[in-house]
C-alpha cells in the first residue's frame, strides 16, 4: 500500500513542544540499537520519529512504545547524535493520546522490563545478561 506523505499531524505539536524539527533526525537508528527494552516495543524510537514525519498519527498514538519508552530511561536520547529529546517526544505523545481518549497500553510488560525499569543497579546487569540468555536459548 502506498503511503501519501503529508505534513499536518501530531508532529506539529511535538515539534513545538521540543523546539526542534523532527527533520533534524540523522536517520542513523542508533537509538533503537542500544535500547535495553526493545523486546517490549512495537515501534523502535526511530520508527516513532519517521512515522511522526509521515503523519501516521494513529499508528504512533496507538503504539505500545510511547507508553513504555522514555520513562526512567534515557538510553536512546543519551546517544542521539543530533540530540533529539526522545523522552520528551514520548511524553508529548502520551499526553496527546490521553487527550484523544486512547487507553494507555501498559498491559503485560514483562517482569524483566519491570526489574530494569525500577532498579538502576540491575539495569546495567540486565543489558549484559539479556543477550547471554538469548544466546543460550
Amino acid at each position, binding site marked *: 500500500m502506498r503511503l501519501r506523505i503529508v505534513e499536518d499531524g501530531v508532529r506539529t505539536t511535538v515539534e513545538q513542544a521540543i523546539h526542534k524539527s523532527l527533520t533534524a533526525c540523522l536517520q*542513523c*537508528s542508533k*537509538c*533503537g*540499537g*542500544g535500547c535495553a527494552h526493545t523486546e517490549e516495543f512495537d515501534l523502535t524510537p526511530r520508527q516513532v520519529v519517521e512515522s511522526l514525519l509521515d503523519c501516521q498519527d494513529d499508528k504512533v498514538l496507538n503504539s505500545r512504545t510511547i507508553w513504555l519508552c522514555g520513562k526512567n530511561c534515557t538510553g536512546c536520547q543519551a*546517544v542521539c547524535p543530533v*540530540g533529539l529529546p526522545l523522552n520528551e517526544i514520548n511524553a508529548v505523545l502520551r499526553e496527546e493520546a490521553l487527550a484523544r481518549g486512547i487507553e494507555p497500553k501498559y498491559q503485560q510488560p514483562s517482569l524483566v522490563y519491570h526489574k530494569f525499569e525500577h532498579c538502576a543497579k540491575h539495569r546495567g546487569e540486565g*543489558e549484559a545478561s539479556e543477550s547471554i540468555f538469548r544466546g543460550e536459548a
Partner: protein
Amino acid sequence: MSKKTLVIGGGIAGITAAQKIAQNGGEVILIEKEAELGGNFAKLAFTFPVLGDAKALVAKEIDAVKSAAGVEILTYTTLQSCQGSAGDFTVELKSASGTRSENVAAIIVAAGFHYMEPTAYTEYSYGRSKNVVTSLEFEKMAAENRLPQGKARVVFVHCVGSRDKAKGYRYCSKICCSYSAKHAIMMKKANPQSLNYVFYIDIRALGKGYEEFIRSAMEEYNVRYIRGRVAKVIENEGKLIVRAEDSLIGNPVEVEADLVVLASAMEPPEGSRELAQVLGIATDEYGFFQETEANVRPVNSSKPGIFLAGSCTQPMEIAASVAMGGLAASEALTLIK
C-alpha cells in the same frame, strides 16, 4: 630578499609541496615536529582504492624529497614566531639544538590531521576492552601481523566522532567509508576464515574507483553491510557484543565479535589553533585552517603569502593532499621569482 619557502609539516602534502618547489628551482626549508617524515601516511599498511603498499609508497616520496637539491629538512622542529608579510617573512624555528632565524618569501602550512581518540564513546567500550580498537590501531595490527586468527568475527563501525553533533564533530570525515572497506578487505585477505561486518549510516565513496572498491568488499570479499549506527559494544567473557538496529528492517540486532574497529574521526592536528595564532591566519569552527575561498582559492589562507595544503584544511584522502601540495607549491613559486 629571500627566495626560500618554509613548509610546515612533513606528511605527504608537505613532501609534495617541497618536491615541486625544488623541481622548479626554489629553495625549501621543510620542518617536521616528529622524528621522521611521512606523517599519517607512514602509519598506514595499505592505500585505497588500490591496495598499494603504503609504507613503500611514502618511503619513495621521502627519499625523493631528501635527495632533492635545495630542500633542507629539519625534524623535531617547530615554528616559534613569524613576522613580516608576503615575500618577506622572518620566522624563528625551534629544535632541540636551539632556535634559528630564517627569512622566507612564502610559507606552506601542511600540518596534517589527527585521528580522534574516541574516549567520549564509553558506549563502545573503547579503552575498557583491548579488542575495541581505532582504525589507526587496526593498521598497526595489520602491519605487525596481529590480526585475529581463525573463524573470527570482526565488526567495523562507521562515523565514530563524525556526523555527531552531541559527542564529536558535525562534519563527515570523508574517507572512513572507503578505509573501512579497505580494512574489511585486508582482514579477509589476511584471514580468509574471518567474517566481516560493517555498520554504516550512508556509504560515501566519492572518488575515482571508490564505489567499485566498496562494492568489491561486498561482492568479492563477502563483507556484510548492515545499515544502522552501532549503539553499544558490551564486553562479556572475552567476547564483544555489538548492538545496533538494522534500520532497513527496523529490527534490533546484535553480533558477537572478536574485534571491533572504530572508524574514528579525522580532526585538526594538535595545536592547530596555536600555530594559526603564531602565523596570524584564520581557522574554522573546528580548528582546521580556513581558506579564503573554498572553490577557486582552496590553498590561500587568510594572510597573503601563507598557503595551505592537505588535511589540515579538512578531512581528505592522500590523492587530494598531493594535489593540494602541488597547488600550494605553485602559489609559493609566484612569490620567489
